[in-house]
Structures are given as structure tokens and as C-alpha cells.
């Protein structure tokens, strides 16, 4: 009891401390917001360099450059680099960079771009921060879970460097708004996570003549290059035809080691900084292929701009209007948003809701529950009594289903035989499995609508989601 009392007072003390910190942070945020408004105002009137802190209205012409004393101190380690120096930093401060996507790639890219003093930094994202983002999207803090990623990312950037101008674009990038948003920046960083967005951003960069720093990561691998710059190719020169949708895996399905997009995002920041400061050789006409597991980095030479490219080629006439009318979702056969696909392959009487399934269990109806997810998914969490037969091995393991059915039949029920139910993560593969089972004679098989996600949502809120 005594230890409980001690715990309680310790917790109360901690709450008090946190509340004090919270007030302090809120005050700081409003001070910064006020400062930001002032900076924006100054930017428009063009009187001051991109927001020094506190705003200084005189240019330090004595030094022969436009860096304020505070900037000199803040960026001193950049200025000490002979190959970067005052010129590189001044270029950076005058530049504007847009990062599309504040996720695994965008997080480190934004943090470094904010820290290094890019004058105006734009962030595009329509999503909110979720707990399962935190392992890789290191710009976000736990207290921002449920809040817009742009808001969270902007707050982190400003807490690192309050002297730069951060612009929040809390919307999904579409053909209707892309020209307007991208045209406000010198350099575009593609930190998105899907094929249609990649084509959309690349085409828009070609139309507007902007360099594009493009990164991608999945599983244990990453890729990086600079498109549409110094005679290099655009995304379409390299990939004129979109890949089949089955080849477009997403982190939410295939997984990703958190640090892998982190590394690629850092390299994206580096390439953007090189272009913005006009220092070094940009990664154009070359591509970095990063394999984390085998610790291998390959830098390969890729084709130059393709004369036949439909967007940037010699005879291409891809206009703003054509861009705005282009259907990227249709072109790539995949959605611009990352919402999971919901298939509808079966007749209603071959399907059952998770609630109905729960009732059947409660009544003790004989059944066989087959979970067709991959084995490593099954190991994360599964429904009790389910039999794991991953979809690709279903054909080879039909005899196991027959055997299980027979065992069940011998058991409790003499009347109608046990029924087959199929479950997966979201209710797509289970439909494919049921289609197949029907074909091979298990005509009573039904899939559980919405899969385990549906089960967690409608039946058992304590069932872990992943």
C-alpha cells in the first residue's frame, strides 16, 4: 500500500512537471507563430532576408555578404567548409524547397533541410500521424498522434530552426493543385509512397522546369536519384510504362525497416542541399541503389533524357492543361491515396460479417477457420483455433482442410457438417481463397468480411491491429 501511495505522489509530481512544460511550450509556439507572421510579412515586402531571428532590418553590407551575425554563428560549420562557405550558405538561405510527403523519407529530409537554413520550406501531406508511423517517421512526436502530419512536421522543424519560413500544405497533391503548389518552390523532393504520385510529381516538375529529388524505400532497400535536371532523365524517361499494380508494394503491406527510409531521406536532403547551394555534382543521370541487409550501395549510370519521352522528349508537347487533365490513377491502375484496396469478388451469401462469425462461435457451431495470411503475419497475432494456410500454398494443402473437416465431423456434430470460414488481414485474400475453394468443391466456404481488421473494429477492440 505504501509503495502505491509513493507511486501516486510520484505520478502527480510528474504530471505537474509535464503541465508546466506544456504551458511553456505553448507560450513558445505562440511566440514563434507571431514571429513567423512577421517573417512572412517581411518576405512579401521584400525588406529582410529570409527571416533572421529576431528580424534585423539592415543588411550587413560591411561583411560583403547578406548573412546576419546570428546566421554566421548558427551556420558557422557550413561556412567553415571551403567548398561550401558563405556562397553556399547564402544560396541555401535564398532557396525554397518543397517536400511532398512527411513520412519515412520526408521526416529526416525535412529535419535536415530545416536545420541547414533553407529559406522557405514547404510540406505537403494530407495524412494524420499514427502510432504505427512512429518507428520511422522520426519528425513526429507521440503527442501529435491523430493530428495532421504537416502540423506536426512544421512544429518539429520550427523547434530546430525558428528562423526559416515553413509553409504547411495540408492537402493531397492532385493535378488540380500541383501546378500551383510546386510553382512556388525552386526544388521538389518526392517523399511520397505510391506510383501515381511519383508520375504526377515528375510530370509537374517537367511542366514547370523544376529539379526533382526522388527517393523510395521498401523493406530493406532504397533508391534515389535526381530527375529533370542538367539534361538528366525524368521519371517517365526511365519508366515510360507503369508497372503492374501487383509490383507496387506498400510499406503498410510489405513492411519497412525504419532506418532505411531514414537513410534515403537523408540522402534526399543532401541532394536538395547540393542543388540549392549550387555545390558539388548532383545525382543526375545516376541512381543510388541501397541494400541495407547486405550492406551494399550501388551507384549506377542511368539513361539520359529520352528524346522519345512523352512528357520531356524532343517532340513532347505536354502542357499544363494536359497535365491537369491527366488521370494518374487510371494510368497506374492504383489510387493516389494509400488507402488499402477493398475487393468485392464474392456473392453476398458466400460472405459473413465478423459479428455473425462471432455469433456462430458463441453458439458452438462446428467450423474450420482458415487464416490465409503469410506465416510471419500469423505469428504477429491470430484468432484462436485458426489454421494457417498461406494463400500461395492453399492448393498444395487442400488435404489438410479435408482432414480437419473430417476430424470435426467425427466430433460434436452429426447434423449439418462443419463450415469453412476463411480470414485474412483485411478481407481481400480471403475472398480469393474462397473463390478457389468453391472451384475445387468446398462450396460452403465463406470469407469473413473485413478480415482481422474488421474483427478488431466490430467484435474485439482489444485484438491487436498492425
Amino acid at each position, binding site marked *: 500500500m505504501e509503495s502505491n501511495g509513493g507511486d501516486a505522489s510520484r505520478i502527480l509530481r510528474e504530471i505537474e512537471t509535464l503541465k508546466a512544460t506544456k504551458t511553456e511550450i505553448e507560450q513558445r509556439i505562440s511566440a514563434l507563430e507571431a514571429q513567423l507572421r512577421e517573417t512572412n510579412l517581411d518576405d512579401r515586402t521584400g525588406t529582410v532576408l529570409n527571416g533572421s531571428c529576431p528580424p534585423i532590418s539592415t543588411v550587413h553590407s560591411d561583411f560583403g555578404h547578406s548573412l546576419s551575425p546570428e546566421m554566421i554563428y548558427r551556420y558557422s560549420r557550413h561556412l567553415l567548409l571551403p567548398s561550401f562557405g558563405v556562397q553556399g550558405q547564402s544560396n541555401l538561405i535564398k532557396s525554397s524547397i518543397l517536400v511532398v510527403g512527411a513520412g519515412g523519407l520526408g521526416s529526416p529530409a525535412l529535419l535536415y533541410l530545416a536545420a541547414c537554413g533553407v529559406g522557405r520550406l514547404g510540406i505537403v501531406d494530407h495524412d494524420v500521424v499514427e502510432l504505427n508511423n512512429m518507428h520511422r517517421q522520426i519528425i513526429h512526436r507521440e503527442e501529435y498522434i491523430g493530428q495532421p502530419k504537416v502540423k506536426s512536421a512544421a512544429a518539429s522543424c520550427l523547434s530546430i530552426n525558428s528562423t526559416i519560413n515553413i509553409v504547411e500544405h495540408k492537402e493531397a497533391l492532385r493535378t488540380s493543385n500541383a501546378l500551383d503548389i510546386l510553382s512556388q518552390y525552386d526544388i521538389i523532393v518526392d517523399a511520397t509512397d505510391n506510383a501515381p504520385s511519383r508520375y504526377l510529381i515528375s510530370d509537374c516538375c517537367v511542366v514547370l522546369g523544376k529539379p526533382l529529388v526522388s*527517393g523510395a524505400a521498401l523493406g530493406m532497400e532504397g533508391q534515389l536519384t535526381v530527375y529533370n535536371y542538367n539534361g538528366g532523365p525524368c521519371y517517365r524517361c526511365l519508366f515510360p510504362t507503369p508497372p503492374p499494380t501487383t509490383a*507496387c508494394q506498400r510499406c503498410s503491406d510489405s513492411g519497412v525497416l525504419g532506418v532505411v527510409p531514414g537513410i534515403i531521406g537523408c540522402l534526399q536532403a543532401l541532394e536538395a542541399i547540393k542543388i540549392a547551394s549550387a555545390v558539388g555534382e548532383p545525382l543526375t543521370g545516376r541512381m543510388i541503389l541501397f541494400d541495407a541487409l547486405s550492406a551494399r550501395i550501388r551507384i549506377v549510370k542511368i539513361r539520359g533524357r529520352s528524346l522519345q519521352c512523352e512528357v520531356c522528349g524532343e517532340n513532347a508537347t505536354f502542357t499544363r492543361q494536359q497535365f491537369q487533365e491527366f488521370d494518374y490513377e487510371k494510368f497506374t491502375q492504383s489510387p493516389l491515396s494509400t488507402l488499402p484496396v477493398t475487393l468485392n469478388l464474392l456473392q453476398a451469401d458466400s460472405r459473413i460479417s465478423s459479428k455473425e462469425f462471432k455469433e456462430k462461435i458463441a453458439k458452438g457451431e462446428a467450423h474450420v477457420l482458415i487464416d490465409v495470411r503469410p506465416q510471419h503475419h500469423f505469428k504477429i497475432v491470430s484468432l484462436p483455433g485458426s489454421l494457417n494456410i498461406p494463400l500461395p500454398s492453399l492448393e498444395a494443402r487442400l488435404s489438410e482442410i479435408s482432414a480437419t473437416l473430417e476430424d470435426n465431423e467425427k466430433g460434436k456434430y452429426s447434423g449439418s457438417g462443419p463450415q469453412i470460414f476463411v480470414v485474412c488481414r483485411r478481407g481481400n485474400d480471403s475472398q480469393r481463397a474462397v473463390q478457389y475453394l468453391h472451384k475445387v468443391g468446398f462450396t460452403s466456404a465463406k470469407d469473413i468480411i473485413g478480415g482481422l481488421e474488421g474483427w478488431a473494429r466490430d467484435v474485439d477492440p482489444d485484438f491487436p491491429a498492425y
Partner: protein
Amino acid sequence: MQLTLEFGGGLELLCNSVKIHNVNVEPQDIELQGGTKKLIMKDLLTWIRGNLIKERPEMFMKGDTVRPGVLVLVNDCDWELSGQLNTTLEEKDVVVFISTLHGG
């Protein structure tokens, strides 16, 4: 002919999840182009399809070339720069097949 073949970006899943394959492709193993004794990428693709790809060949090839979204690199150089399907291969060449990634 000794060649090193590498599969990445998920293509390794089509060949038993093995990324690097040190293979010996003899010119007699393959159909020769116009009677000349050389191995070109077109022949190598046929050989790979027959010998290395264990599942879903449509995820690797479309028609007689690689499917859209696959970059082919011969000695770290885009095969577009060396003649694509007609690229002539030589002893100890390294050929990389990599599926473009979209995640982030």
C-alpha cells in the same frame, strides 16, 4: 560464360529469395542469334526465365523483355545505354535486375 546476376527491389522473391546468383551460361545453352557465337541480353533473359525464375514469371518478363518497372544494369550501367536486348555480354559481367520501389 561466368556471369553474376543480381535481383533486387523484390524481384529476388521470384528466385527463392536469393539475390545474387553466380551462374555459368554457355553459348550452347542458348539459341544463338544469327549464328554468331555471342551471348546477348535477349538470350540471357530466356535463360533466366527457364533456369532461375521459380514463380510468377509475369512479374519478371512481359513479352520477350523485362516487365515495365524493372531496371536492367549491365556492369552498373543502364542497358538502354548499351543496346537493351542486344547488349553483348562478356565473361564476368554483372547484370542487375531491380524493380523500382514506390514506398516511403
